[in-house]
């Protein structure tokens, strides 16, 4: 194997708490970043793994989600990302994020509208921002930061800034989180 000379890809754009969507304790020793696509079936599976992982990791970990919609193969992914960002602007990012992943089969505009109602958004504002494409630039910025960081498909994870190249099964992720917590790098 030539593994010894492999260089693991690094997160090109560091976490910015003002801008990024961060869930979990601020002081956690481990930050897990996902680049994901709301219409990607693997991201849909990973969503439930991440939920378990967050529960099990407790104070060890915080979770960050960035957009990586593959729009040509997932025609609803970008709209869904816009809906999540529009919800984020009203302080409800994670509520919308969760709903989208739990309803991946229904991501048409009328579905997004229903989710906006469920999470309790200011609907006229939501509609206006969706119509304007207010968050498209931000989504594109996420996408490019992912491409610069070595994201080559979805989901791609980074643990404390280094790409996680193993599987994202719960046990593997938990072990990687524990390793990172022990190393104490951030």
């Amino acid at each position, binding site marked *: 194997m*030539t593994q010894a000379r492999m260089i693991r890809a690094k997160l090109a754009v560091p976490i910015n708490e003002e801008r990024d969507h961060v869930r979990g304790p601020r002081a956690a020793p481990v930050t897990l970043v996902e680049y994901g696509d709301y219409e990607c079936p693997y991201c849909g599976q990973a969503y439930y793994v991440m939920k378990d992982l967050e529960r099990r990791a407790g104070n060890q970990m915080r979770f960050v989600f960035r957009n990586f919609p593959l729009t040509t193969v997932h025609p609803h992914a970008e709209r869904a990302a816009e809906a999540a960002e529009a919800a984020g602007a009203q302080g409800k990012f994670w509520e919308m994020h969760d709903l989208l992943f739990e309803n991946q089969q229904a991501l048409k505009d009328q579905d997004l509208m229903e989710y906006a109602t469920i999470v309790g958004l200011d609907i006229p504002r939501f509609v206006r921002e969706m119509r304007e494409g207010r968050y498209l630039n931000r989504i594109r910025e996420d996408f490019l930061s992912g491409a610069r960081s070595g994201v080559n498909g979805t989901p791609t994870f980074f643990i404390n800034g280094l790409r996680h190249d193993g599987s994202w099964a719960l046990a593997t992720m938990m072990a990687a989180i524990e390793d990172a917590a022990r190393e104490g790098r951030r």
Partner: protein
Amino acid sequence: MSKAKNQQETSGPNSVLGPGVPAPEFKLRSTQSLRPGRETSAPGFKLQTLPPDQFISLSELRGRPVILVFYPADWSPVCGDQVVLYNELLPEFQRFNAALLGASVDNYWCHLAFAKDRKLRFPLLSDFEPKGAVARSYGAYRQQDGICERALFVIDADGTVRWSYLSPLDVNPGAEGILDALEALDSKREVAA
């Protein structure tokens, strides 16, 4: 899953062409033309016959950077992800005025079906006859398997290879190496200007 993702090195055990050497010329049948404003296939014949002159040569792209992507095969899982990622990054590559070309030993019809299925907006070239001849000239042919390596080349506006990367066959090399190489070309040009 392989751990061997993305080593950003020029050469591995096989020897792909490295930086500084002239990129070998080629002319290959393509799923699309890159020549602007030129209808290269009569619409009525598009599906029945091979478009008569839909070829792309490296020399016709002189004056702009070229991203040449050899990949093992249409329809294989990793290749699918890789071309979809590059398709998504086309606007970014265009910012550098770069032309993106995919190439494998698959034939034109196979490429066409693959490009349609993945909604690709960049040309796929058929290194079909003589099989793999262009890939060989770039050191990107796997004799033992009869397919192209997964190899990336960034060629500058003068036709010189500026960056290359041989990826393990089962690993999607992503795009950051390409983007870094294009950026390096750009900054060199600014210095020269």
